[in-house]
């Protein structure tokens, strides 16, 4: 039985990470979830949040702004619209994200208001989580 799973983090512009991980924490739309080897095949959309990859004793964290994740027993792929290592995620990026979410909410038609509002709350939560 394999004790690692192949983790890939790709953004539209480049591949950010590809490594064998022991567990991956993913900010799913319906709450955080942790993928470990032999996880059942799973597909979820992402909310803005932090992806935490553990490989042995090392952890890497990436801030993602949305996208989706695909989990299979042997691999976890996160396809993020935008992703940056947590250390590089600065306050002005968070501010941009927040402004964008607010604008979206203001422009959103009636049936989209729910999801736009949810996104704004997610962004705020992310901001406070990172204490920016």
């Amino acid at each position, binding site marked *: 039985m394999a004790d690692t799973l192949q983790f890939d983090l790709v953004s*539209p*512009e480049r591949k950010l990470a590809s490594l064998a991980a022991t567990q991956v924490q993913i900010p799913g739309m319906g709450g955080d979830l942790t993928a470990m080897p032999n996880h059942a095949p*799973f*597909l*979820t*959309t992402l909310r803005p949040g932090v992806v935490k990859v553990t490989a042995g004793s090392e952890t890497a964290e990436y801030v993602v702004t949305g996208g*989706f994740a695909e989990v299979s027993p042997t691999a976890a792929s996160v396809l993020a*619209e*935008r992703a940056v290592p947590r250390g590089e995620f600065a306050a002005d990026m968070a501010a941009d994200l927040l402004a964008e979410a607010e604008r979206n909410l203001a422009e959103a038609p009636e049936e989209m208001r729910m999801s736009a509002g949810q996104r704004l709350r997610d962004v705020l939560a992310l901001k406070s989580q990172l204490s920016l």
Partner: protein
Amino acid sequence: MPSLKDLKIRIASVKSTRKITKAMQMVAAAKLRRAQESAESARPYAERMDAVLGNLAAGVAESANAPRLLAGTGKSETHLLVVATAERGLCGGFNSSIVRLARNRVARLQAEGKTVKILTIGKKGREQLRRDLSALLVGHVDLSDVKKLGYPDAARIAHDILNRFNAGEFDVATIYFNRFQSVISQVPTERQLIPAVFEAREGGASSQYEYEPDEEAILADLLPRGVATQIFTALLENGASEQGARMSAMDNATRNAGEMIDKLTIVYNRSRQQAITSELIEIISGAEAL
């Protein structure tokens, strides 16, 4: 017969032209490498996106409440052609070949009695299409300020197109661009954006996945992203093609300039020789006459 001085000036001018085309070729070669790299690094995302969407779409396609982006509006009356060209010229047949493909398509659609709208990306295509199809142009995306094409640019274009779709401005959207095959060969390509089409995959694996939220919600979230990704891929391919086309066009121009210089130099030397000979004859016949 041009005078020696004219020839000299001419040679000098062709030489400086050759210098320029040579420099452009080298710049294009450097940019091509970069463009190819970014096209390369965008591939994993696009492929994964395609695979996941294909899987999802196969599972949802039959259901009645499939998203409109996938199922279409149920008619194909109004077509939106997204024509992606370059911002600059001097790249051989690059822009014309895309425009020609789009134009053929317009003619075919109009013959069938459909309405055609055109959205241009890049200045050159707009200039060419404006000549005879200006009535069909509904929008233009200017990328001349964009130094390095990023996903947000593509997302912006996709957002615009999706807004138009939701407003019911068109039923079918197709994007036109050049697919990069090699430095000397770029293939004008059309690809349907809306409704989304996916290559049929064998053994639909969609049932083995668990979805959160449900399949349709994910699909509704992902399809717009899929459109953006396709536009992004197309623009990257286009960028690499443009540099490739420019490189080979400038290579040709440099070679032609070289040939021209050789020819002019021969003419120059001949007329110089001739001038000397005729001067000698004059002197000799002058001496003989005495």
